[in-house]
């Protein structure tokens, strides 16, 4: 095996599937151009030509319907949005059309469409370039929603998504693109709907979403030094959810913190909390705690951004709070800053 980063994992999954299956194609604004969506489509236009890797007008609504039409008539499109904020223009097609084409035809039509959406904090991006909106899509029956955290998960889940006969929305946190780890070279599938315990522990379960798993790991390292053992569960697929994995973990630890990189109110953390509370009734030693964005539009200035976005510190303090520990002084700890690129193992 060799190391591959998350962007490379997407690129490799896409390339391998395009090689294997001539029906697969990838398109979207900026997809074949110089910037190649954080490098995730680099080399693909040269290799597969303009008919299988192409740019589009800034017409997200039509280009989503386009993907649907191509999918139901035999192709397997991958549509890329460089920001989930722009995918909002695709919601009419995604919610009113893509999600129910199979159902309304009595199960006759399949919709093998992958929609990729980049999320995550940037450099003072402000209110229109900072959303995640997981729950706006997990709410909709007929859509699968994934948010892989590690490069190896990404590769296997992207391949599974491309091979899936149903629409899959894939959320990619931009800070993860630089994460590296050993990733198998051959194509493989990680089934959608199966979560993963990223780190076993016994005192508290942190259910992390996307980038927040990286923060959770950092938090767990810090807490380990104080003898607190954190279990990190990455659902990976948000819909359909591997509820059992999460519930069993929380039953074991008796405590749960949900760390999301989205707003808390009506976020996916609400769904997780509702289910955990229902299924772990009587087994919880403390109320489930949700962590996420402040319930405000994203500000631009760094000092308010730092308040807006949760991170490892937020998790550490939440765990301390839950366990009744003193708040530690974290001054000596090394927290992630996006000014230096992320290179962690997951």
């Amino acid at each position, binding site marked *: 095996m060799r190391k591959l980063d998350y962007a490379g994992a997407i690129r490799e999954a896409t390339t391998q599937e395009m090689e294997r299956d001539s*029906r697969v*194609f990838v398109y979207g604004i900026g997809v074949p151009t110089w910037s190649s969506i954080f490098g995730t489509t680099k080399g693909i236009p040269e290799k597969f030509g303009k*008919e299988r890797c192409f740019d*589009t*007008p800034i*017409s997200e*609504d*039509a*280009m*989503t*319907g*386009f*993907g*649907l*039409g*191509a*999918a*139901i*008539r*035999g*192709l397997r*499109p991958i549509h890329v949005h460089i920001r989930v904020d722009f995918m909002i223009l695709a919601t*009419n*097609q995604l919610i*009113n*059309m893509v999600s129910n*084409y*199979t*159902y*309304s*035809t*009595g*199960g*006759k*039509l*399949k*919709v093998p469409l992958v929609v990729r959406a980049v999320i995550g904090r940037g450099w003072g991006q402000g209110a229109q370039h900072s959303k995640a909106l997981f729950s706006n899509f997990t709410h909709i*029956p*007929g859509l*699968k929603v994934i948010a892989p955290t590690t490069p190896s998960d990404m590769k296997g889940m992207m391949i599974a998504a491309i091979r899936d*006969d*149903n629409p899959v929305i894939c959320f990619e946190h931009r800070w993860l693109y630089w994460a590296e780890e050993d990733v198998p070279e051959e194509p493989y599938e990680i089934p959608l709907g199966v979560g993963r315990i990223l780190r076993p522990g016994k005192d508290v379960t942190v259910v992390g979403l996307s980038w927040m798993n990286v923060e959770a790991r950092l938090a767990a390292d810090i807490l380990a030094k104080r003898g607190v053992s954190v279990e990190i569960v990455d659902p990976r697929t948000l819909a359909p959810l591997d509820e059992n994995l999460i519930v069993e973990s929380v039953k074991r630890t008796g405590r749960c913190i949900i760390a999301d990189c989205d707003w808390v109110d009506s976020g996916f953390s609400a769904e997780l909390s509702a289910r955990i509370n229902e299924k772990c009734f009587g087994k919880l030693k403390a109320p489930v705690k949700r962590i996420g964005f402040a319930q405000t539009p994203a500000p631009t200035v760094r000092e308010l951004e730092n308040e807006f976005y949760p991170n490892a510190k937020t998790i550490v303090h939440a765990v301390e709070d839950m366990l009744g520990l003193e708040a530690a002084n974290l001054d000596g700890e090394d927290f992630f800053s996006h000014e230096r690129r992320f290179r962690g193992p997951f």
Partner: protein
Amino acid sequence: MSFAREPLPKATTIKLFKSLFLARRSEEYIVKHYAENLMRTPMHMSMGQEFVCVGVCSALEGKADVFASYRSHAAFLAQTHDTDRFFSELYGRTSGTGEGKGGSMHLAAPDQGHILSSGVVATQIPVAVGAAFANRQLKTGRTSVVFFGDGAADAGVFWESINAAALFKLPVIFVCEDNGYAVDTPREARQVSKSLSDAVKPFGADTYEDDSGDVESVYSLAKEAVAKAHRDRRPAFLNVKCCRYLEHVGIGTDWNWGYRDQATVEREWIDRDALKVQRARLAKHQVTESAIAAMEDEIDKAIQASVKRASQAPIPTPDRLHAGVFYEKA
């Protein structure tokens, strides 16, 4: 403008008559029986406009992928002639096009080239563009056709879709069933362009206007437009003036709404009803009245039989609710 440049062969005239008659009589059946409350789905009737879909779908001789709006009946029947699955869907039976899950607004017989009709204005339009792309890549030889109302041209996605089809050099046939109204709002109260075709032209489609009200004109036009679209690798936009005889949704008339005048509509449209005109043409082709009556009778019987089969078909059992949310391999 009318496109019926030379008389069509007798067989075509008959085919068009039958297809028109099938759509008309199927809807007449609905009008008559809707009050029984067994077809429990909102009905957006095609009556009066059938000639648009019949003309276009007949010209394509089956090799079409049709996308339609909630005003779906004529498009569905013109393309499939499948009254069995049509009525089964309206009656909400497992034998319907969507095993009862779709209803009138979501008719779907993809195996017969009627993909799926859609209830949100203009949503079906970009889907047709993507289907055309797939048809080209997979060399199926099929033509993507999308039907929509004049109201759909209010929507930005309509313009995005024409541009995309032209940009990708796809022979999509965009057919506007221009009945002049979105519910009771006339086009002039919604769109500033004098002629929709003129507005569409710069977006890269060949445009055609038809105000003949005649199925043979539309048929001829569609033949020409489809051939040119494939030849030149360009989309075509067909704006066909037509008239909805009934209310926007439902089986009644709407003369009392005050937005259009019954006498005018009758004079300008109903008096030259496409079905009536087409029936008269048969005589010119030396088809006797009794031969016509026999055709009509055959179609009526087919409808009766379909309705009977539909009403006797099973209703979906509750466990079907959760089936088919995701695609299940056969």
